[in-house]
């Protein structure tokens, strides 16, 4: 297919693909899947953090957390818009989320049980997300790449805020420090799983790399994340819950154990601690809000009708 070939050549030449331009169906579908999954993750990701807004320990922390969750909703918005440029509507994407057809990042199926978890999410989860997202700023699809530039900037701000929460806590009382360690114990492995299984096990990786939708292998990014995070854990005075963790001078990085992929696939299959609750919360928000959306639509139609009538009367 000459279209296909020309398209791949543009990508290889580092050109950006824009919405109205020709693209292959596979490229379009893969992007829709990836961007909408990313958008859903931002939306569902409001829930575990939102769980602590009403219990934030100071007004300052409450304000910071509110701002962060607001940013996430904003990221969701950019990303849905980016996906819409590929010919899918936001309502269709919601439908896929609510029916369970579309996925979101599995990390959000873990519960936030203490205030330290809010710090850990910023530090580890946003940290891992950034690691995944930085290369996407150079992704071949223009709207996605541009959304990523803005998102990455905000995410790294969130990550610093998360780290700051934990800094305060580890310098605090023994109970606070224990809370942080407990939180690291629970979030460490799920964070490593955020990069997905080894690329050998991943069907879509090679094609996505060729399309420059994906730029690094899962294992590469995971290694980078561990190498960046372990010294931060040490700085916080925490113990990473991996007895196999060891600096490897030769490779210039850490050796670390394999995450429990059985758990990973279990959570993906819907058996995580919070899968049911997260999806129920989103479905309920959507269903309970139907009258609201219908009301706005009806008003817009009435208003348009009135404007049209006024125009006719004026003519």
């Amino acid at each position, binding site marked *: 297919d000459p279209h296909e070939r020309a398209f791949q050549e543009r990508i290889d030449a580092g050109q950006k693909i824009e919405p109205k331009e020709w693209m292959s169906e596979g490229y379009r579908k893969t992007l829709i899947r990836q961007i909408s999954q990313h958008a859903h993750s931002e939306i569902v990701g409001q829930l575990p953090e939102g769980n602590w807004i009403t219990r934030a320990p100071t*007004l300052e922390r409450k*304000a910071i957390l*509110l701002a962060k969750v*607001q940013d996430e909703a904003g990221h969701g918005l950019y990303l849905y818009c980016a996906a819409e440029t590929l010919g899918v509507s936001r309502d269709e994407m919601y439908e896929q989320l609510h029916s369970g057809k579309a996925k979101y990042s599995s990390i959000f199926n873990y519960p936030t049980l203490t205030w330290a978890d809010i710090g850990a999410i910023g530090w580890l989860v946003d940290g891992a997300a950034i690691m995944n997202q930085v290369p996407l700023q150079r992704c071949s699809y223009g709207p996605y790449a541009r959304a990523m530039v803005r998102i990455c900037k905000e995410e790294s701000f969130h990550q610093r805020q998360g780290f700051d929460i934990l800094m305060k806590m580890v310098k*605090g009382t023994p109970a606070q420090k224990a809370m942080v360690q407990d939180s690291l114990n629970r979030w460490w492995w799920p964070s490593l799983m955020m990069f997905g299984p080894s690329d050998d096990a991943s069907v879509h990786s090679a094609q996505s790399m060729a399309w420059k939708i994906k730029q690094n292998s899962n294992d590469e990014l995971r290694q980078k994340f561990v190498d960046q995070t372990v010294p931060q854990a040490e700085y916080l005075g925490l113990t990473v819950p991996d007895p196999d963790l060891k600096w490897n001078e030769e490779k210039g990085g850490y050796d670390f154990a394999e995450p429990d992929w059985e758990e990973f696939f279990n959570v993906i299959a819907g058996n995580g601690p919070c899968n049911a609750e997260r999806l129920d919360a989103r479905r309920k*928000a959507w269903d309970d809000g139907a*009258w609201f959306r219908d009301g706005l*639509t009806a*008003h817009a139609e009435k208003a348009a009708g009135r404007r049209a009538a006024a125009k006719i009367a004026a003519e």
Partner: protein
Amino acid sequence: MATAAVDPAAHQAALFEFLSRIGDNALILGHRVSEWCGHAPALEEDIALANTALDLIGQTQLWLGLAGEVEGKGRSADDLAYLRDGYEFRNILLVERPNGDFGKTLMRQFLFDAWHYLLLKALKGSSDQRIAEIAEKAFKEVSYHLDRSRDLVIRLGDGTAESHSRMQASLDELWAFTGEMFMSDDLDAELAEAGIIPAPQGLKPGWDQIVADTLTEATLRKPADGYMHKGGRRGVHTEHLGFVLAEMQFLQRAYPGATW
């Protein structure tokens, strides 16, 4: 507003009381609004509500911060927010009403915003410079809140039959909690006399006007002015506040003296 000389200790107490009232309104309404986080009927609403809550929590920091300063006992805004029990809170009952459906949340916001807007507008001219400055900042935010809540009340009131009836039901239920905004006591009178705050009842005509115009456009029926609930301004709340505080204050109460 005219200024007059007053007894300093009584003045300080009255000022603390006023600042608690305005600060607690922002804190408790901010809390209620933030309960929606991630559960709103549209993504734009999630963003807008988080923004409103954020503004209100920011205002809380300023008002309660000043309250602590005026009190002079070394209490911070956080101390006041997290370490007082229910009977020490001074918010009006309206803001502690449970969220209900999204329409009730919006109606509560509109009824409050219209008053909050007028109050802050007047406070920009307060004879107390510190108050005038906070009001200046808050007024900008609240003008936007009012634009937004008024617009949504209109669109939903004049939307579908269902959205109309939900908005009317919310209005009917909340109406009896609006009277407290305009009630006045000796403290209000004293501060009004000193040109520090507007007399509460003086805000009523302006509020009536905003509400009447909005409801007309929204095709909603203004409820009759019947019995009005009161108590929050002097610390007698509804059973809801205790649960709000149990949740809000948990960490500060469970880990006394810890820094976060």
